[in-house]
Structure formats: structure tokens, C-alpha cells
């Protein structure tokens, strides 16, 4: 059962998938870019971590993903760490009431949080870089990027779950803690 995979395989799997998708993001995914719109798989992993990892371990994984994203993207180090942390906290709050097992909800979550992440990026850039001006068609771009991320979310969720499943299968069994 992938949903019930141990926390360490899930954390390791999410981190490794993030690294892999980050590398693909700078190469293969950028070849299929539609103008300024690109595949953004790491946000999907942040949402997955927010719903499926325990609080502290999830924070560590998400900060690692943010660090990797900062390394390969942009000139403002630490920006993605902060944004992913915010998205992660929202997912941790949402998981109390919601479950992310279904595809439509995965897509909805990723779409909404993509818009939030991009708004935070634009906001942070506006505050920290005086010369930065958000593009005039930002709302349209955000909507299109959110749709792309939403429709590709099940694919990246599936990839992550597959890797988590493999690690859970081959990794050492977790100790059962009696209640």
C-alpha cells in the first residue's frame, strides 16, 4: 500500500524524485516549454510531502527541495525555501480535513498552490529587487501555469509514489510502535 509506506522511504523517495525532476526541469522539460510556461514538478512534490509526510521530516524534505530549486533556478538564494515552506504549512493544515488520494483533488490542490507560490515569488521579487516589475499578463500566465501544473500533477504524484514504493519494498522494515 503506497499511501501507507513508511515515513523514511517516503521522505527519501520524495527527495530523490525532487532531485531527479529538478535535473529534468533544466533540460528535458525546458525543451517542451510553451513560451514562459513550463512543467513545474517540484511544487507537486511539496504538496505531496505536505499531505503525506510527518511534520518535522516533511519540513526537512521540503527545505531540501527548496534548496535544490534555488540552486538551479534564479539568482535569489533562499526564495524557494521560504515559498515551499509556506506551501507545505498550508498543506499540513489542510490535511487535517482533506485527503489527497483522489486525482481531482490532487489537481485542484496543485493548481491553487501553484498560483499562491507564483504570487509569493512575484511579491518577494517586488520587495527585494527594486527593478523587478511583474509582467502585465501575470494573471493569465498564473492561470495557464496552474492548469499545466494541475493536469500534470497526477503524473508526478504517480512517479513519486512509484519511487516511494520501490524504496519501501527494498528498504529495511520500519519498527512497529505499539500504542
Amino acid at each position, binding site marked *: 500500500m503506497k499511501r501507507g509506506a513508511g515515513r523514511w522511504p517516503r521522505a527519501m523517495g520524495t527527495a530523490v524524485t525532487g532531485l531527479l525532476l529538478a535535473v529534468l526541469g533544466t*533540460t528535458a522539460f525546458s525543451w517542451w516549454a510553451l513560451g514562459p510556461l*513550463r512543467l*513545474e514538478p517540484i511544487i507537486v512534490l511539496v504538496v505531496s510531502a505536505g499531505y503525506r509526510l510527518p511534520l518535522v521530516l516533511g519540513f526537512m524534505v521540503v527545505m531540501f527541495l527548496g534548496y535544490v530549486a534555488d540552486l*538551479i533556478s*534564479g*539568482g535569489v538564494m*533562499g526564495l524557494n525555501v521560504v515559498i515551499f515552506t509556506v506551501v507545505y504549512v498550508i498543506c499540513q493544515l489542510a490535511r487535517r480535513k482533506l485527503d489527497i488520494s483522489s486525482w481531482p483533488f490532487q489537481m485542484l490542490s496543485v493548481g491553487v498552490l501553484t498560483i499562491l507560490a507564483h504570487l509569493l515569488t512575484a511579491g518577494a521579487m517586488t520587495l527585494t529587487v527594486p527593478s523587478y516589475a511583474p509582467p502585465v499578463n501575470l494573471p493569465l500566465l498564473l492561470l495557464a501555469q496552474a492548469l499545466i501544473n494541475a493536469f500534470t500533477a497526477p503524473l508526478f504524484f504517480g512517479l513519486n509514489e512509484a519511487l516511494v514504493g520501490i524504496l519501501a519494498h527494498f528498504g529495511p522494515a520500519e519498527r512497529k510502535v505499539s500504542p
Partner: protein
Amino acid sequence: MNFFRKYRFPIIVGLFVLGALAYFSFSAGKGVERIPAGRYLLELTGPVQRGITEVGDWFNSIWRHYFALVQAAEENDRLKKELAALKQRTVDRDELELANRRLKKLLEFKANLDYPMVAAEVVGSDPSSQFKTVIINKGAADGVESLMPVVCAQGAVGRVIWSSPNYAKLLLLIDPNCGVDVIVQRSRARGVVEGAPGGELRLKYVIHTEDVALGDKVITSGAAGVYPKGVLVGTVSAVRQGQDGAFQRVQITPAVDFGRLEEVLVLLRRRQLDQ
């Protein structure tokens, strides 16, 4: 203990959010060179990026020059293969010729600049639409360090923002974080060029009395110590008198086509402030 159990969630969230913000402000102030883990991570991902790029190029070549022809002609297999092979050779020769021309321009450009420099290939581009950076296949082992200027045959490209032993990340001129001190070649009007939305550049701090006209060439001034003087940055494509403030609004079309950046030259020149 009960207090911690009761408020575990907000305490942990608060700690991590504060940690993230502290890291952000630390990194913004000190620069990424101080965080060594990133160097090794880029060393890990760099070869994979390079491999994927090469495999992608190979598949692209196969797709364009072989499969397309196979689909186009079905009745004569021998002729088709011969045609495909000939076309492939022509394309290869064209590609070699284009590469030769590019490298020749780069060599001519290199001869004009009296600085030690190292040529590098672009192996990865920024996955985000909001930032403009690329990764090249030369790093600290070749003498590439942060703040070194990067050029190509067409003109200024950007600067190195950090390097690992064998790879480096460049901040392109069209990124809003990148600023270069420049002069208008004809009138010697001075300003600062910064990235603007849509892949254009914006020339700032040029007062109303300065003479700037459409088509004027903009070159680096050498004043900020990063770039040598006289590297072409772009051409003035629009000039408007701003309604607010004392400055003109000048738009510049970059000399470099950043969408087709393949080879670059890193000037192995540490920042030199004006004497």
C-alpha cells in the same frame, strides 16, 4: 512538557518558518558561495544534465533527420535511405559549418579582448519562467569564480553567480537581478542596464538632458569593475520621456539572442574597482 504537546504544531511550524526566513536573509546578504553543499550538489547534477542534453540532441537529430524522411517516402527504400544519409551528411556539414562560424566569431572576439578567458558550453537552462539563469560546463577547476563577466561573440551575456569545481551558474543580463553599468556609445550618456519583462533590457538613470536616440549602441562602461569597457550590450529600441522623475525610459534590445545561447566565454577577471 504538556505545553509543548498542546502547541506542538504551531511551535514546530514557527521554528521552521523562522529558519527558512533566516536562511533567506542570510543567503541574500552573504552570497551562495558560502554554502558549500550546493557546490557538490551541482557536481552531482551537472553530469546528468549534460548527459540528458546530449541524449536529447541525439534523439532530436534522429527524429528530424531520419524518422521524418522514413514517413515521407515509402515506395523506394534504397533511395530513401540514400537520401536520408545524404541529408544527414548535409545537415551534419551545415551544423559543423555553423559551429565553425560561431567559434570563429568567438575566436575573433577573444582576440580583441586582452583578458584570459575560458570557453564553455551551456548545459542547462533555468526551469522557472521568472528567472533567467543558465548552467555552463566550466567551474572553479578552470578558474571560473563568482562575479566573473561572461560574453559571447555578439556581446555581454551576464555574470557568474556561483561555481562548483566543474560547473557554474550564470545570471543572464535579462534577469531583473542583473545590473550592468553602461554608456551609450555615440553620446557617452551613462546609465545602468537591467532585465525587463519579455526578454528586453531597460536602461535606467539616464536624465532627460542626455542624448539617447533609437538605434544607439549601448556598451559596458567598465566602471563597476565587473565588465571590461566596451563590450556591446544592445541597441536602443525605444526612448520615452518619463512622466515621473527626472529620468528617461529607455528600452534596449539585447545584442545576444539568449534563446539560442550555446557557447560562451568567461573572462577570468576578478572584479576591479576603478583605480
